[in-house]
């Protein structure tokens, strides 16, 4: 019986989670291998694996994977280094917020992909342009979320620190920053996920390497197996980096979960 909000046993949870993947692949195999859709439009799972293997072994696709990972992390780290301090400053000091918040809110809605033609004009089609696309896509998001989190710092903790003799400077460094560190790390984890979307878009246009380049290249050759393989690789790397990020946060901030 399904009872609302009733927890599911851990073993059952794993089985159910895997079951959907099995069903999904089975359905995919049925419509492709069974001849229900044309092979031109959708490769079957087996040829997808074969194509993927060939990509990795013969076409050095792992180099594309590495370069894409480097772009995501490079752009993401750049954005974080710039955005986190600005976000903290905006959250902590209201005049800074009043000064920057309207512009950042506006800039946040500028789609990173629409900047690509402009960024290519400014920075060419090299690595720097790819990093800039991710940077533009992430930086305003991080600033705003961090500013909101910091602005919502528990006032009673700040007051307690003042009654213990903390200075304004001490409040920012030893209350506001540590109090929000786990939330900021969680924000970065979320934005890293979005950065994966930006990198593929950046690689679809004016690029000669990377997972996105491979995908757009495969399109012209109707190699749907390769496209699907590329998409799955992105999903897997995203999942792995998410796990790693979560583990890092747990290790860095044991107090927030104890």
């Amino acid at each position, binding site marked *: 019986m399904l009872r609302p909000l009733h927890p599911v046993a851990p073993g059952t949870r794993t089985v159910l989670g895997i079951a959907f993947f099995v069903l999904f692949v089975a359905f995919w195999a049925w419509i492709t291998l069974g001849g229900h859709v044309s092979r031109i439009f959708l490769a079957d799972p087996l040829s997808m694996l074969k194509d993927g293997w060939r990509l990795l072994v013969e076409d050095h696709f792992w180099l594309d994977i590495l370069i894409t990972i480097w772009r995501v992390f490079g752009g993401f780290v750049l954005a974080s280094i710039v955005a986190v301090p600005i976000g903290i400053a905006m959250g902590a000091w209201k005049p800074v917020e009043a000064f920057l918040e309207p512009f950042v809110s506006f800039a946040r809605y500028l789609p990173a992909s629409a900047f690509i033609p402009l960024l290519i004009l400014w920075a060419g089609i090299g690595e720097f342009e790819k990093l800039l696309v991710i940077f533009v896509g992430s930086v305003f998001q991080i600033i705003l979320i961090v500013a909101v989190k910091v602005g919502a710092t528990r006032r009673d903790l700040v*007051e307690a620190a003042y009654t213990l003799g903390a200075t304004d400077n001490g409040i920012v460094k*030893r209350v506001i920053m540590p109090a929000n560190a786990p939330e900021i790390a969680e924000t970065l984890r979320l934005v890293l996920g979005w950065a994966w979307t930006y990198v593929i878009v950046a690689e679809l246009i004016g690029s000669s390497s990377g997972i996105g380049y491979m995908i757009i290249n495969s399109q012209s050759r109707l190699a749907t197996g390769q496209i699907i393989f590329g998409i799955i690789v992105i999903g897997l790397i995203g999942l792995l980096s998410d796990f790693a990020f979560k583990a890092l946060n747990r290790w860095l901030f044991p107090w927030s979960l*104890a």
Partner: protein
Amino acid sequence: MSKLLIEGVSRTFAGVGGGRPVRALQPVDLAVAANDFITILGPSGCGKSTLLRIVAGLEAPSTGRVLLDGKAVTRPGPDRGMVFQSYTLFPWLTVAENIGFGLREQGRPERERKEIVASYVDLVGLKGFENHWPKQLSGGMQQRTAIARALANDPEILLLDEPFGALDNQTRGLMQELLLGIWERRKKTVLFVTHDIEEAIFMASRVIVMTARPGRIKSDVPVDLPHPRHYTLKTSPEFSALKAQLTEDIRVEAMRTAQV
């Protein structure tokens, strides 16, 4: 000379959305002698917490001033330790680091800090829990840590805003004895806000009763019960007589607040 002088302190909050300003506190005068344990007793919303926050320097009075050792209070500082009703331990610091927070902010050397922290860990009975995170502690243990944290600065006055309000009855009784025991041994000037009549009498050398909002001082009742006090005191005839008197005082005010 009085340790703490409250002179004509009142507080009016600006009206919300153009509404009329709300007066939380009528002008209050109060002189607190050194090493006195004063409880401020009043119904909810009578402004007793506001008064305490003004003494702490967390809020500015609309009129009047607060003098501690003859110096006017303008902002919060380590000479006025405060314990809040909500749990305000820093969750990213261990029990020992929480207790040492104030000492660290004042740049005291680490060795000295360690010694002082150890003595206060001992004082509030938290030996063995020094390296626990606040989340791992019960409510009573968290408030004991908060008391130790405020005391570690060796403040001139200790301010407590319903510190045991969120605790269950049994724990609350134990905490009262613990705090009173510390006061009996170490002597400190204490201002303790509560709405619990029994707590107000048991802890105090003087109970200040406040009226319903806007609050002002209604009566000033000395409590001459002998020290050290034991929980059995709460069932003695003298205690009951005081309790009956204060219950009557506060009941009128509570009814005015509830408008029944």
